[in-house]
């Protein structure tokens, strides 16, 4: 691998790719996606809390899995956000920056993978591959949000790369297994995918891996896996290890035949050309408007590449690609989601390797013409990406990206003497986004949470949406009581109707709209005295 860095021209191109990726992935990083989702605020605020106090939001010292709202997320991404917050402060850019950096490094993993595929004929293919990878929508989207999946992809791909390289140089095997094991501390998918991958890797390449030369390394590798998994094993018997079991397809009322059909339909759904090259992810929060996970034109090199890979199926390069291709969707196919780009992100690697194989085959026909066509296609892809991601996404998806919490936090700061009640009937847990934007001191926040949670940290997964800190409270509005308290009730457009506002003498004090003009939050001030007068002080809530 080091030999590729020796040539100055190689280094120059790699630096170009690095700086291009860094620019693209950090441009308006705090502004697009427009908003700051709860799943970003959670690692952000917990990283801040760990930095300031060594404890998470619940006061747990260095947790193996972060409880969040009962989701028990693997901790590595949150830990990676700590240095970013230390340098840049607690803000959206700092939370997303590690994902952007990991995304750029993933392009280099893909580059080295392509460099080591035996049947790629053209020296330029790995460079084209790395460049194209940076603008592939699937990867681009997840590299610009504060989610753990980008880091999970980097570590998983890196681990697979070293395992593949170990077929030629046995010492890479330990590094590969170590990195794969580490990836299980980044995202849930890897907890299931890594063991599946390792088992099949050893089965498929058994002739190489079980020969005399490798035997002692395998024993060391097993020992290494056990050692690195001790932390996961300590929480294995607790709900913290498997908190998302409700996401898995239900087997209560369905028969086994139905389950097989359900699994197969979802599994093959991850190979659906329509879903991969034409339709965005059905979850609006995980997709780019009018853009699928790959560009539509990539269908052609994909088919050509797939035929090539299958034709060469006896070669190690093909075997590793086909192995990844077939096992990567398994964890995602077991869940209820119809097409989860989030959970199936590992599938990006084999698909992309196949696409570049196809491009390499096309290059064989007429290099200069193909390069010219390639440049045109690359430019058009950039324009399509610009349109969908930088123009449409910030406007059309602001509401699903938690837009409005920063503005709400500013309203709260501007009214320090007022008490705010944030209605939680329909809104995602607001407490964490508000704690984040208010930069509420973690040591004070930890004192507001139920102390029994710390004691039963990994076993008590119940999440209570009721929080009280600073001058705010988050809970469902209780109309019999809350209108008699002097406060500002904040909710969406359904929280308070016109009739309710008139009946309870509520006066609107602010309104927060998204870029399309849709109301995100409305704040209503209560008038307890007037309300009590209206009901002749008959309510028990009326204070004398």
């Amino acid at each position: 691998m080091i030999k590729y860095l020796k040539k100055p021209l190689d280094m120059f191109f790699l630096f170009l790719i690095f700086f291009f990726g860094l620019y693209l992935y950090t441009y308006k990083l705090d502004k697009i996606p427009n908003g700051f989702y709860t799943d970003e605020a959670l690692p952000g605020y917990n990283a801040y809390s760990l930095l300031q106090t060594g404890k998470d939001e619940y006061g747990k010292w260095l947790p193996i899995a972060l409880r969040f709202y009962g989701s028990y997320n693997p901790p590595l991404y949150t830990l990676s956000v700590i240095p970013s917050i230390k340098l840049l402060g607690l803000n959206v850019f700092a939370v997303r920056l590690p994902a952007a950096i990991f995304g750029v490094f993933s392009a280099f993993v893909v580059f080295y993978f392509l460099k080591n595929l035996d049947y790629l004929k053209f020296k330029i293919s790995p460079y084209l591959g790395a460049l194209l990878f940076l603008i592939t929508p699937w990867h681009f989207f997840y590299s610009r949000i504060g989610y753990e999946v980008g880091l999970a992809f980097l570590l998983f791909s890196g681990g697979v790369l070293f395992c593949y390289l170990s077929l030629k140089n046995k010492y890479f095997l330990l590094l590969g297994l170590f990195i794969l094991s580490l990836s299980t501390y980044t995202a849930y998918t890897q907890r299931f995918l890594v063991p599946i991958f390792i088992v099949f890797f050893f089965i498929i390449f058994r002739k190489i891996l079980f020969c005399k030369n490798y035997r002692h390394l395998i024993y060391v590798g097993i020992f290494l896996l056990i050692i690195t998994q001790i932390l996961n094993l300590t929480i294995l018997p607790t709900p913290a290890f498997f908190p998302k079991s409700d996401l898995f397809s239900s087997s209560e009322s369905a028969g086994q035949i139905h389950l097989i059909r359900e699994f197969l339909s979802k599994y093959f759904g991850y190979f659906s050309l329509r879903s991969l090259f034409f339709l965005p992810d059905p979850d609006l929060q995980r997709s780019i408007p009018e853009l699928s996970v790959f560009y539509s034109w990539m269908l052609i090199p994909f088919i050509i590449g797939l035929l090539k890979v299958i034709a060469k199926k006896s070669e190690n390069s093909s075997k590793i690609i086909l192995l990844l291709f077939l096992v990567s969707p398994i964890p995602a196919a077991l869940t209820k989601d119809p097409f989860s780009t989030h959970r199936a992100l590992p599938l990006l690697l084999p698909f992309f390797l196949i696409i570049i194989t196809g491009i390499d085959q096309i290059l064989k026909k007429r290099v200069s013409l193909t390069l010219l066509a390639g440049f045109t296609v690359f430019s058009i892809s950039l324009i399509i990406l610009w349109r969908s991601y930088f123009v449409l996404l910030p406007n059309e998806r602001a509401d699903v990206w938690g837009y409005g919490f920063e503005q709400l936090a500013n309203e709260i700061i501007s009214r320090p003497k007022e008490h705010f009640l944030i209605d939680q009937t329909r809104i995602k847990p607001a407490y964490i986004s508000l704690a984040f934007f208010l930069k509420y001191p973690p040591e004070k926040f930890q004192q507001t949470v139920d102390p029994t949670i710390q004691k039963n940290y990994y076993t008590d997964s119940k999440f209570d949406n009721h929080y009280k800190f600073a001058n705010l409270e988050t809970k469902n509005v209780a109309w019999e009581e809350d209108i008699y308290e002097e406060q500002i009730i904040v909710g969406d457009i359904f929280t308070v109707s016109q009739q309710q506002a008139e009946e309870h003498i509520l006066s609107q004090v602010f309104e927060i709209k998204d870029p399309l003009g849709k109301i995100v939050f409305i704040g209503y001030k209560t008038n307890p005295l007037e309300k009590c007068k209206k009901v002749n002080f008959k309510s028990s809530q009326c204070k004398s």
Partner: protein
Amino acid sequence: MFILGFIIFTSFWFWKILNYNLFLSFILILTTFTTYRNFNSRIIGVTGILLFTILLLFQVKFTEISNLTTLNNNEITIQQQRINEYPQAKITLFNKTIWVPIANWFELRKESIVINKITENFSEVIDLNLYFFANHPRERNGVGEFEKFHYLFVILFLVGIFGSINSCDKKWFALYFLLPVFMISFIGNKNPLGSFSLFPFIVVMISAGVKRILKFI
């Protein structure tokens, strides 16, 4: 031939077509058998082309062809909304400002609308889940999805297609697969019987898959 017959008569799709139009189902059986014969012999006879042409004509006849430039009310609303989302783009050359109508190019031009419609139709017709899982789990809005072949046949289909694609006659592939796919991309998928002009291709690929597996066993 027995395998072919088994696949045809166990297909939910065939029985739906039979219930809808007896003559069409008869044409479908004949076309499927001639497609199979052409696949094995690598010669595409006149009979095969004639029958397949009749099948394609039936495909056009039963499809509610909509104008590729027409937008429904929802699409018009989104289009109007999106025009305002684009930034004002301009190029300044020698003190002259040239405004670049990006919003117009992407949202209003008929070419953009047509390309979007064609790719949408194309993506629907090439979706594997459409044929084996009634488009589950990504069913289309406002469309009565139905299962065309038993879901277990998907594996046989994939074995058949990947085993045959390198060795099969390219003309056969272009006629029985590419031609109906491109035709449906232009006329659309609003058809109560679905894209049945692909029925012979799918059945032949499934039977090729069965043969490969039997050979392997």
